[in-house]
């Protein structure tokens, strides 16, 4: 009952506040009238009665205020008043308001965008039921030399059989398939994932149509089955509901479509469009090997089992495996990561570094605005003192200041949200390589973050100047500001501190950006060891059925080469299995026949690639020693290999490798392959040093996956179409994929570095600009405040250079302190981004020196104009202005 009554009152007070105010006045007037009437009754005349009534009643306005204070929503009233006052104050100096809002907008916008990115990519759980129980499992070495290694099929089989920590385990491998064209559709290469049938139950996904794999499908002898994503089904099959149960041709074989994934399912990335059962696709022998690392493993922890417990159990199992298989590249440990962490491991440091940078930027923006507000409050200190003297409370003044800065922050924040959504669009467009990029969007938490940022900025920027005004010294303030001598000493010190902090943060950003930029240029300048200009690459995958023998594969390779080499515009062409710059690709273990047997447990390992005789010439990889492959090294007569210099350095120290024999049972079982030549190193991951590599003859006809590299005379993309036609004329059913120039390939692998460096540089330049504006503003203000003093000094004979020097010193002091703070902080902070650096150290003295000089120069420029102006003051005018 009473609750209802209270709610009714609250609503009334909220909705009819104006009416209630009028009524309060009527009520009080009525009271006064009654009093007047009574006084008249006591014999006073009208005027006397009125005076007496007002005397007994007191100040009606104050009384009304007191009554109003008992109303609900009173705080709201006061807030509205403060907002009105704040808006009016800001509108009076639109230049300041617009600058402050823009600065806030940039800071908040950049932060919201980066936070959205970090949250969507790194923090938000995967869209699966109980996603925090999903882990990625990797093989590792207990001595720490290897971690996050992909897993061997044999190890997985042991884990699956014995591990008790998991309610389910699944094994997957990325694949690419040729999807045959039907009717007028062209054949197409699609990215796919082969996985054990347990994968979908483990993830907790339900099919949108049909069913997922059963255990019976996931066996070597089973009928070929496939599950397709919603996207592929819509795109390629027009969402045909009868597709389930029908057959499609994949890699020239017939697969039955058993089910369609739901539309939200884009794991592990949106480009994967097909799923096949792994044990059907790969040979039973491979799935039992402990040496061949090919697979990714996902597990679901049992409830109440921690990642540490699971890790301990698997480590014990893996140790046992190693004891039973002391030879070959068998790992003796494992490492586990939560699945989100496992997928985003590579981009994590970069994203956090950028988030840190935007945080700095926002802090700088806040400090800058706080600084400007301190300056303003200094010029308004007289007003504040008068209000204090008249009984305005300190709290009231602080509140006004905070409301004012919060208004700026809110306006800036709203604009910032717009900027953030723009930045995000651009990011998503730019960085398709970021895992889970499809999951990026703003949600409630991001909005909360934005609001927190806005409020935080408003409070920070408002409280600093508000706290700096001390009402205890009203008299001092009134006396001090009666002459334009200078802002209070405490306030000047506060502003210098703010500036120093601002400069310090800027220095940290500049150093970070400098290091990343230097890494990037080192990356671009790195000698990769192969031709980069005018190179075009494309890949084909010969299906097992129609290219079942070495003869057929060889025939295809040779015809392709002769046709492509005959094309106008093609200077040279070659075949390989791994395009340099695209990563390491396959690696295998080997032994050297002439060397004594290795101690137990030790292996030699190298990258494995197959190339034709023309490849080294086409890629301009130099032959250092011996001979290159020859057309005669074919089919049965292909027992020769080339090695790179790194392999010689590592495994043939002080020894001529030519004529030695390599035995690589994973590549050519039971054969001894003679080393006939040594070629130059290539950098296959540009951020890493070259790795030992063995080149096997492509003309052995062993390989079905073939990459064609061509060097053109001019623009390499001009030969793309004719080369694709040449392939189609050989086999119209063969889809061509990854038609890329070498610039594109290298651009992709240095994209992270360029992206991080460019963004960080943009932030650094922005904050440098802010710091410059801050220094300029501070010194200009100081000069304006001290006009009289300077005028007096000039009139008394101070030399103008002296004035200028002193002003410069005052302006540069905070910059110098900031520089010291910033350099000190950088020493600690740059170590955190060490993993992003290439060809440079976190404490690169050149970068530190360059940053220091840039900063001092900018600070000097910012201070020069106000200092010069001070030295040009006309003493007469300065004194008259008083």
């Amino acid at each position, binding site marked *: 009952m*009473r609750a209802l009554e209270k709610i009714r009152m609250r609503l009334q007070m909220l909705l009819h506040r104006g009416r209630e105010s009028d009524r309060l006045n009527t009520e009080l007037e009525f009271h006064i009238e009654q009093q007047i009437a009574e006084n008249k009754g006591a014999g006073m005349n009208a005027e006397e009665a009125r005076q007496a009534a007002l005397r007994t009643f007191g100040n009606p306005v104050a009384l009304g205020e007191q009554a109003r204070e008992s*109303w609900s929503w009173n705080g709201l009233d006061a807030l509205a008043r403060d907002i009105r006052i704040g808006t009016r104050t800001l509108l009076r100096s639109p230049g300041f308001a617009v600058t402050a809002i823009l600065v806030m907008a940039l800071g908040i916008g950049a932060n919201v965008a980066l936070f959205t990115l970090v949250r969507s990519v790194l923090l938000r759980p995967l869209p699966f039921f109980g996603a925090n129980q999903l882990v990625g499992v990797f093989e590792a070495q207990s001595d720490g030399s290897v971690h996050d290694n992909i897993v061997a099929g044999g190890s997985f089989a042991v884990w699956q059989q014995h591990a008790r920590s998991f309610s389910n385990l699944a094994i997957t491998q990325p694949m690419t398939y040729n999807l045959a064209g039907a009717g007028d559709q062209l054949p197409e290469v699609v990215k796919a994932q082969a996985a054990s049938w347990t994968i979908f139950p483990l993830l907790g996904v339900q099919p949108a149509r049909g069913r997922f794999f059963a255990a019976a499908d996931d066996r070597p002898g089973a009928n070929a089955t496939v599950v397709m994503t919603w996207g592929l089904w819509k795109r390629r099959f027009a969402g045909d509901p009868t597709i389930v149960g029908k057959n499609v041709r994949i890699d020239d074989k017939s697969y039955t479509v058993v089910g369609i994934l739901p539309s939200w399912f884009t794991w592990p990335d949106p480009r994967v469009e097909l799923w096949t059962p792994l044990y059907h696709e790969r040979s039973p022998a491979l799935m039992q090997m402990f040496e061949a690392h090919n697979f990714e493993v996902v597990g679901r922890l049992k409830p109440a089992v921690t990642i540490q417990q699971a890790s301990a159990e698997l480590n014990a199992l893996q140790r046992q495996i190693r004891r039973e298989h002391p030879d070959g590249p068998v790992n003796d440990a494992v490492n586990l990561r939560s699945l989100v962490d496992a997928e985003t491991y590579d981009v994590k440091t970069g994203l956090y570094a950028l988030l840190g940078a935007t945080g700095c930027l926002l802090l700088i923006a806040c400090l800058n605005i706080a600084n400007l507000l301190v300056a303003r409050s200094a010029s308004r200190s007289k007003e504040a003192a008068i209000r204090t003297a008249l009984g305005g409370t300190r709290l009231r003044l602080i509140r006004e200041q905070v409301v004012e800065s919060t208004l700026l922050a809110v306006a800036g924040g709203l604009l910032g949200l717009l900027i953030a959504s723009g930045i995000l669009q651009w990011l998503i467009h730019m960085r398709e390589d970021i895992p889970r990029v499809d999951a990026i969007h703003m949600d409630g938490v991001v909005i909360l973050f934005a609001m927190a940022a806005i409020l935080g900025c408003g409070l920070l920027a408002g409280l600093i100047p508000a706290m700096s005004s001390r009402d205890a010294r009203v008299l001092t303030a009134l006396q001090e500001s009666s002459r334009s001598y200078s802002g209070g000493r405490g306030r000047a010190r506060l502003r210098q501190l703010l500036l120093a902090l601002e400069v310090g943060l800027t220095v940290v950003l500049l150093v970070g950006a400098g290091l990343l930029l230097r890494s990037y240029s080192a990356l671009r300048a790195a000698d990769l060891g192969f031709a980069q200009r005018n190179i075009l690459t494309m890949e084909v995958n010969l299906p097992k059925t129609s290219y079942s023998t070495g003869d057929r594969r060889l025939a295809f390779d040779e015809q392709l080469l002769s046709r492509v080499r005959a094309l106008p515009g093609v200077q040279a062409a070659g075949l390989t299995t791994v395009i340099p710059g695209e990563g390491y690709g396959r690696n295998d273990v080997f032994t050297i026949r002439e060397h004594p047997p290795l101690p137990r447990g030790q292996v030699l390992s190298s990258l494995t690639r197959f190339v034709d005789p023309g490849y080294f010439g086409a890629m301009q990889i130099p032959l250092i020693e011996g001979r290159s492959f020859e057309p005669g090294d074919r089919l049965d007569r292909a027992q020769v290999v080339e090695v790179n210099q790194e392999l010689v350095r590592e495994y043939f120290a002080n020894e001529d490798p030519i004529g030695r024999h390599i035995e690589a049972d994973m590549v050519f079982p039971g054969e001894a392959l003679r080393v006939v030549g040594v070629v130059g190193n290539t950098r296959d991951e540009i951020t890493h040093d070259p790795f030992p590599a063995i080149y096997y003859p492509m003309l052995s006809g062993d390989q079905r996956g073939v990459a064609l590299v061509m060097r053109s005379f001019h623009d390499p993309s001009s030969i793309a179409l004719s080369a694709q036609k040449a392939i189609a004329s050989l086999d119209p059913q063969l889809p061509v994929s990854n038609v890329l120039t070498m610039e594109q390939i290298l651009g992709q692998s240095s994209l992270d570095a360029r992206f991080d460096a460019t963004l960080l540089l943009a932030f650094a330049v922005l904050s440098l600009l802010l710091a410059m504006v801050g220094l300029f503003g501070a010194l200009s203000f100081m000069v304006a405040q001290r006009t009289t003093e300077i005028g007096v000094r000039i009139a008394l004979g101070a030399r103008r250079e002296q004035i200028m020097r002193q002003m410069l010193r005052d302006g540069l002091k905070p910059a110098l302190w900031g520089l010291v703070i910033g350099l000190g902080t950088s020493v600690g902070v740059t170590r955190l981004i060490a993993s992003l650096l290439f060809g440079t150290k976190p404490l690169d003295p050149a970068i530190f020196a360059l940053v220091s000089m840039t900063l001092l120069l900018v600070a000097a420029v910012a201070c020069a104009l106000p200092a010069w102006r001070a030295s040009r003051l006309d003493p007469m005018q300065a004194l008259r202005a008083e």
Partner: protein
Amino acid sequence: MAKPSDLVQGTLDLLILRTIAPDPMHGWAIAKRIQQISQEVLQVQQGSLYPALHRLEQQGWIRAKWAESETGRQAKFYSLTAAGKKQLEEETANWNRLSAAIDLVIAGA
């Protein structure tokens, strides 16, 4: 004339509730009535009367209604709500207990 006693906060609430218990009344009348009944000992300051009335109204103990006063002007008449009646009983009981206790202490000492 003795200085009128300042009314303790809370006591004023009780007085207001008691005064308007029989009939709805406006602020002026409430002040007059308290003064009269207490034989001029209790003088309600306007400065505390109106805030108290508004506070009681916000809390739902009393309800206001605009009606024509005896002089023909619109005035705000306050009356007890059901919750206010209960509150009055409670506060009266409290007051009686308190004043009896004070009497005892004074008489006994």
